């Protein structure tokens, strides 16, 4: 039993933080909020060089062969910096999707391209109903002579506008299958869905009779349900790691501010109203840390309670990060409500991730199914 990071893991975290402190300043985040593509190629290239883009892939695909705990360490730092870019969509949704279900040829084609920074992926995991259960998939897949034809509408597809391929679940007569779709293929149209977190991009992805070849199928045809569930669990924990980072940043900023901001002739941190708020925020952040890294370890190790741990993590961190980031605005007072002050970048990142890959309610239901089974 050892619930602490190894020296290598601490080293990784420190190096990610050091790099993002320099290259992903809030000025960079704000510049990307106004940028057409929304992310910086220079930083993306740097991330490839540092090995972050292939972090969870096998070495044969140019990856670092590391696990989910390390991935979450990186993502926590990205949440802390409100990193703008297709990291989660490419490495987690697309990359881990292929790691879990891709054929040798698909992995060969895409994983090394993701790792080297030359390709970006995404996955379209939710439709109008916002039901994250793969069984709810309404997009259809019909067989053609040498492949499939896909039709339907996907919503909240992260970074689809810069993706080279998108994993798309669709319902074939035999069941739900997963397909690799080129978002620039005929019949695919993308429309931006602009949320409050401008450093994060979503699209609506409409497929009208989009033709894909037979080798575009990922995982067992007509049996992609459990593959998608595995992917969703990983995505939920990775999103939680990012929310944790955002929450920790908000806590750090609040504590620093409470030490210097004076009212009534003394620092506001000396008042219990603010001190107790900060203490509660720390408790939330530390518990969220335990939830994220327990789940990351459990999924990685294939522990018996991995599925329920992932749901515990997403249910707990979704609410906790929202609360901590919100309390940070309250502790700051008026300045925390200004566009100019950076707090809202992290507040919005946490909020944007809260409903993705299942919100707290969704995962509480999954928890009860597991516990009472």
């Amino acid at each position: 039993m050892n619930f602490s990071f190894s020296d290598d893991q601490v080293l990784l975290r420190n190096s990610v933080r050091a790099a993002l402190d320099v290259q992903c300043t809030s000025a960079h985040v704000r510049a990307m909020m106004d940028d057409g593509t929304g992310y910086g190629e220079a930083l993306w290239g740097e991330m490839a060089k540092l090995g972050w883009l292939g972090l969870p892939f096998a070495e044969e695909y140019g990856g670092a062969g590391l696990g989910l705990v390390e991935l979450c360490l990186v993502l926590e730092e990205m949440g802390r910096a409100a990193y703008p870019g297709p990291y989660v969509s490419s490495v987690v949704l697309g990359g881990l999707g292929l790691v879990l279900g891709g054929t040798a040829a698909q992995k060969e084609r895409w994983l090394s391209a993701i790792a080297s920074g030359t390709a970006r992926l995404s996955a379209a995991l939710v439709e109008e109903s916002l039901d994250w259960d793969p069984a709810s998939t309404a997009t259809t897949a019909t067989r053609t002579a040498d492949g499939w034809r896909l039709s339907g509408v996907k919503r909240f597809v992260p970074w689809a506008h810069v993706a080279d391929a998108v994993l798309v679940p669709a319902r074939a007569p035999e069941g739900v299958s997963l397909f690799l779709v080129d978002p620039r293929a005929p019949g695919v149209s993308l429309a931006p869905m602009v949320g409050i977190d401008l450093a994060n991009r979503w699209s609506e992805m409409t497929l009208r009779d989009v033709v894909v070849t037979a080798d575009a199928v990922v995982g067992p045809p007509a049996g992609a349900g459990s593959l998608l569930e595995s992917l969703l669990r990983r995505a939920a924990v990775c999103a939680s790691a990012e929310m944790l980072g955002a929450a920790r940043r908000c806590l750090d900023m609040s504590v620093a501010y409470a030490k210097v901001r004076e009212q009534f002739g003394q620092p506001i941190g000396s008042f219990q109203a603010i001190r107790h708020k900060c203490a509660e925020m720390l408790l939330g952040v530390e518990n969220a840390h335990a939830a994220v890294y327990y789940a990351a370890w459990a999924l990685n190790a294939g522990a018996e309670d991995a599925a329920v741990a992932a749901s515990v993590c997403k249910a707990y961190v979704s609410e906790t990060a929202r609360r901590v980031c919100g309390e940070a605005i309250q502790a700051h007072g008026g300045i925390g409500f200004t566009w100019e002050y950076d707090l809202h970048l992290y507040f919005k990142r946490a909020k944007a991730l809260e409903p993705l890959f299942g919100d707290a309610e969704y995962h509480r239901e999954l928890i009860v199914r597991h516990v009472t089974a």
Partner: protein
Amino acid sequence: MDLNYTPEDVAFRKSVRAWLEHNLPRLPIRTLADRRQWHRRLYEAGYLGMGWPREYGGGGARPMEQAIVADEMARANAPAPTNGLGLGIVGPTVIVHGSDAQKERYLKKILTAEELWCQLYSEPNAGSDLAALKTAAVDQGDHFVVNGQKIWTSGGANADWGLLLARTDTKVPKHKGITCFLMSMRQPGVDVRPLKQITGSSEFCEVFMTNARVEKSDQVGKLGEGWAIAQTTLGYERGGRSLARVTTYASQYHHLVNATRRLKRHGRPLIDDPIVRQKLGRIWAELEVERYSALRVLTLLERGEHPGAGGSLTKLSYSEFEKRFMELAQEILGPYGQLTDGAPPEYQLQVDTAVGDHGTWAYAFLWSRAGTIYAGSSEIQKNVIGERILGLPKETRADRTGATR
């Protein structure tokens, strides 16, 4: 990071489980004599004072082994040993701060429950502001004479001895004039009266001291060091039992789930009601987070690190969770949850609560109100977290300087 138990820990857990299966008392423990006997069995098996040095009768065990024993006892719903404060607070205090003679005289008898202990800290006007305590110990040359009143004394009615904080100097700031003593409760100057709580039971007592006598040899540490000693003492209460506590919560949770299979609303069992399922899901998520956090604390303890002010986070977290858990359980159970007697078996809580033998939802609910008050209220824990972990400035207080009066 490896959250698997080592093969040694798994084997040890198996041996504890087997021992409990063979040795668990068949009949409910009703008398103090029964409980002492059970305590001795546990001690003889090596399951009490496990972390104490061997030279004083302890087991020199690792924190993980202690946690496993506590956890398996919770899992088996085993009765608690007696002398919890002796084992948890007094013994460790004497080990760290006591003289050789005190260690020789007192420690073994704590382990064997030959002498039961209580803790004489809080007073009617010194609760959260413990350093404001007024009970006075006056030096009479060869002994001290103690006058004053203590309150919230757990186990006071059965105690043979008390770990006492008393004021020995009123001319210095209040934190500096307090001394720690070991005081016999079996003397004419000590009057113990049970205090009836909102539970209807009396786990706590009031203790009145009128010219009570404390020997010079029973002073712990130096004069005026009592506050510093008490600070370390309070820390002993936190961390070690956290895994077992979660296991008890989990047993309670499964009783709750069973009740929701039985209760019906709109013609279907409550367990199929989405609102009830949300509540059940919320409790389990928080309960598991408590377990993960307990494993984090255990990792620190295993490495020989003291959680320090981090113990305040642990205490704040579980005690506030316990209140939310019990409130949600009450919402689900309705008036069944309030029954202290006459509950149909399926709505009973057959899990011992903190103090031993009150297996009802009503008692567990009421008792949950105590956790955020005793051993430093939630508000005090937040002060500690704010000042000692986050480094926030102390509030301006009128009592940090000057004489105590």
